[in-house]
């Protein structure tokens, strides 16, 4: 049988971001795939070295378009760790609140992309329609739909007002029902299952060997969630479940993410309820003492790790960003081998790629 090499990307309707992906086909079956990154490499790590700690907050917000808040949170945690700064409890709670709202936003967006890629436009529209509620809430709280610019070293910039808490509660209650509805559809729809069951399989052992994190790992039975394992911020004060599945296929990833969305809504409700009073930010010194700090947090896609090295000046000596997409990308050629061309779209959507994150 003749072989055909199909270029997927850097520009292709399957991918919303530039990633080059050469798939060798034999008939309809995928034999091999070659990845190439770097189309949106912006040199953020290098750029960070020449900018002050404060300017870098805005820079790291732009690592990713979807999980922008978690990046600034992780970065600020690292700098606060270097400074030895105690962040006021209320500030941390507002930070966590936005992290969880962002998780809801990211997972709903992902569900939409998956549904679109397997040709179920209706769920795509519904998921994005429901996502709009979260976006509006985030805009209400921070002033921006995507780049919230609410984090600052030492806390957050904007406080929550009583009126906003009311709006949050209403929105979250509404959203909870909608997510339940989406879960019902994904759980029961036969054509959805027919297109997502049994493809892109990763075993628990493979997840461990490939160092995969986040929902992809949890869908294969790996119990990794930094919010539970090494609680950062004040996650240890809140109760939530780590959702895991054992199937390890695209459908399991969808289920994990939707369950996580409802968990995140529950978390948000708890945070609003428990919201402590007091200051929202501590004042920072501009000079950061020399030292190194590793800050980890659980982004919607998994573990984000920031390594910040300070040499005692106004700008960091080195910032290393590792985003969760990079771990998922390594497994893609393995997941795709032997699949049909039609399944490529479902698998690629299933791991939730963010190329801008991976390239930095």
């Amino acid at each position, binding site marked *: 049988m003749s072989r055909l090499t199909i270029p997927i990307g850097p520009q292709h309707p399957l991918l919303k971001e530039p990633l080059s992906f050469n798939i060798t086909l034999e008939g309809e079956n995928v034999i091999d795939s070659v990845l190439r990154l770097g189309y949106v490499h912006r040199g953020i790590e290098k750029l960070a070295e020449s900018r002050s700690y404060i*300017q870098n907050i*805005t820079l790291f*917000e732009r690592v990713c378009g979807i999980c922008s808040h978690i990046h600034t949170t992780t970065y600020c945690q690292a700098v606060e760790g270097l400074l030895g700064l105690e962040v006021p409890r209320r500030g941390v709670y507002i930070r966590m609140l936005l992290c969880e709202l962002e998780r809801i936003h990211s997972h709903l967006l992902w569900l939409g992309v998956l549904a679109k890629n397997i040709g179920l436009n209706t769920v795509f529209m519904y998921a994005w329609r429901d996502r*709009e509620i979260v976006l509006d809430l985030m*805009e*209400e709280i921070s*002033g921006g739909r995507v780049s919230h610019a609410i984090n600052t070293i030492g806390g957050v910039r904007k406080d929550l007002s009583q009126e906003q808490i009311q709006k949050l509660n209403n929105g979250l209650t509404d959203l909870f029902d909608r997510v339940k509805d989406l879960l019902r*559809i994904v759980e029961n729809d036969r054509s959805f299952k027919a297109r997502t069951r049994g493809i892109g399989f990763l075993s628990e052992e493979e997840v461990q060997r490939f160092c995969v994190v986040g929902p992809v790992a949890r869908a294969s039975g790996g119990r990794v969630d930094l919010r539970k394992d090494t609680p950062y911020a004040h996650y240890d004060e809140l109760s939530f479940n780590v959702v895991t599945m054992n199937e390890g296929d695209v459908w399991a990833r969808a289920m994990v993410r939707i369950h996580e969305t409802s968990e995140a809504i529950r978390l948000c409700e708890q945070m609003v309820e428990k919201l402590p009073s007091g200051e929202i930010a501590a004042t920072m010194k501009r000079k950061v003492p020399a030292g190194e700090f590793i800050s980890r947090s659980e982004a919607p896609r998994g573990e984000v790790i920031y390594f910040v090295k300070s040499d005692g000046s106004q700008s960091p000596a080195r910032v290393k960003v590792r985003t969760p997409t990079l771990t998922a990308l390594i497994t893609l050629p393995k997941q795709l081998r032997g699949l049909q061309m039609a399944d490529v779209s479902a698998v690629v959507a299933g791991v939730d790629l963010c190329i801008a994150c991976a390239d930095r």
Partner: protein
Amino acid sequence: MKKILNKIHSFFPLLPNIFSAFFSKPETENYPFEKTHIPERYRGRVSIREENCVGCSLCVLDCPASALEIEKESKTQYRLLHYRDRCTYCGQCEQSCRFDAIYMDNDYIKPADNKQDFFAVLVDRKGS
């Protein structure tokens, strides 16, 4: 009858959703013809309360996009400029200002087609 309906429902879980969507108002905002809701904290145009500004240039120092520039002749004689095309509307200037002078108002800024519109003089105390 109810059994049959349940059966159909479990086979095609999307059916009730599409009918309820069909008979309810569309979710799309018909933007140019409908006004969108702009929240209170929307980061719009960078504006200034001129009387509060003392020319400390903290905002210029912290601006991550170098969108703010200050032309200083002496302590009281300076010009604060804002380049809107460089601005990322992050609100850092508002955060950095200790005198409650620079702030972002709620106005949505329309795109401009000439260069002059990208350039705003926030404070002009030159020669005064």
